[in-house]
């Protein structure tokens, strides 16, 4: 349910961007979200229209890229895929690892335009 807070923060960023670029409509928004960010992409998609209503981003297409959970093993140096609740090295099985992907919560890319109003 904190996805709505995240959406409000996103809309604030989009409005700032649109203002800086003198755009009045946002067409496309791409987010990068890792499973360990604590944000559920599906809930974010559902919250988005509520937060975007009446803003420049109201009709934007929202795309969410879910990044894989990957760890770097401090013990053996291998890089491997992991799961959210088992961040252990797939090569040697050690738990002394560092996360290299999977906790992102990023606004990656925006497409925006200036539309002239028809009177």
């Amino acid at each position, binding site marked *: *349910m*904190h996805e709505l*807070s*995240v959406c409000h*923060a*996103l809309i*604030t*960023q989009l409005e700032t*961007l649109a203002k800086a*670029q003198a*755009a009045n409509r946002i*067409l*496309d928004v*791409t*987010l*990068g979200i*890792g499973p*360990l*960010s*604590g*944000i559920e992409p599906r809930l974010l998609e559902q919250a988005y229209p509520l937060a975007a209503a009446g803003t420049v981003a109201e009709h934007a297409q929202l795309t969410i*890229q879910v*990044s*894989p959970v*990957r*760890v*770097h093993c401090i013990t053996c140096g291998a890089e491997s895929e992991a799961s*959210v*609740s*088992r*961040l*252990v090295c797939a090569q040697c099985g050690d*738990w*002394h*690892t*560092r*996360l*290299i*992907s*999977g*906790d*992102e*919560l*990023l*606004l*990656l*890319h*925006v*497409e*925006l*335009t200036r539309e002239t109003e028809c009177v």
Partner: protein
Amino acid sequence: MCDTCGCNVTKGNRHLLAPGGKLEKTSQGAQAITVLKNLLSENDIAAMHNRSHLDRQAVFTINLMSSPGAGKTALLEATIEALGERYRIAVIEGDLETENDAERIRAKGVPAIQITTGTACHLDAHMIHDALHRLNLAAVDILFVENVGNLVCPASFDLGQHRNVTLLSIPEGDDKPAKYPVIFRAADLVGVTKTDLLPVLGDFSMERAKQYVQALANAAPVLEISTRTEAGLQDWLDWVEKALIEYRACCERGESLRPAIQPDGARLHAAVP
């Protein structure tokens, strides 16, 4: 995280920006911008502001998280009783409704600010900022932030704290760290509370709980605490004091202290080989 030096581009997302990557193409007539900005940057800026606010007065701040009823307030009451004469303690309480917890803390003779979030499931840096202005920070050595009882949402918001503590009570079961990895991964210390219930809830394995925490690549100590029998309480108090000494040493060097795992900053700024 920063948005100027390109450190937001990591091994994990660089491919998206490369030629032919999913983010390179633009739709016709539209302007495309690559942003790579953290979605919670507004919260994170407020958290940084809080942290410098706290550091100016050397107020060591612990963010205490757990599910509702795991014993956060009871642990704070016991901590105030044990350390209250040596250190000036203050508490920020987060709940959806009521002043109940703040009143329990005030009854121990310690200032407590209650934040009632209404329907919000977590505290954020802005709420903490307002609460900090209601406290006399010059008269505080240790500040505890008792987050809203919830194992999901509080993990995603930096408040400006120096250490994260996540509690897990015996009745919840030993596999909570596996079920709620985000919040247990963020812990600098995991406290297993209500250990006096172990004899009646025999299916809780302390060994398994510790293994689940380790499987999150988290080296945080796992302490066993009962505020009722006071078993293990001293280990917790020792940890708090040791962390406070470490924090004060940081302050003297003009540095701050951050929880071992931060959602973004630490990882992004670490040199990825």
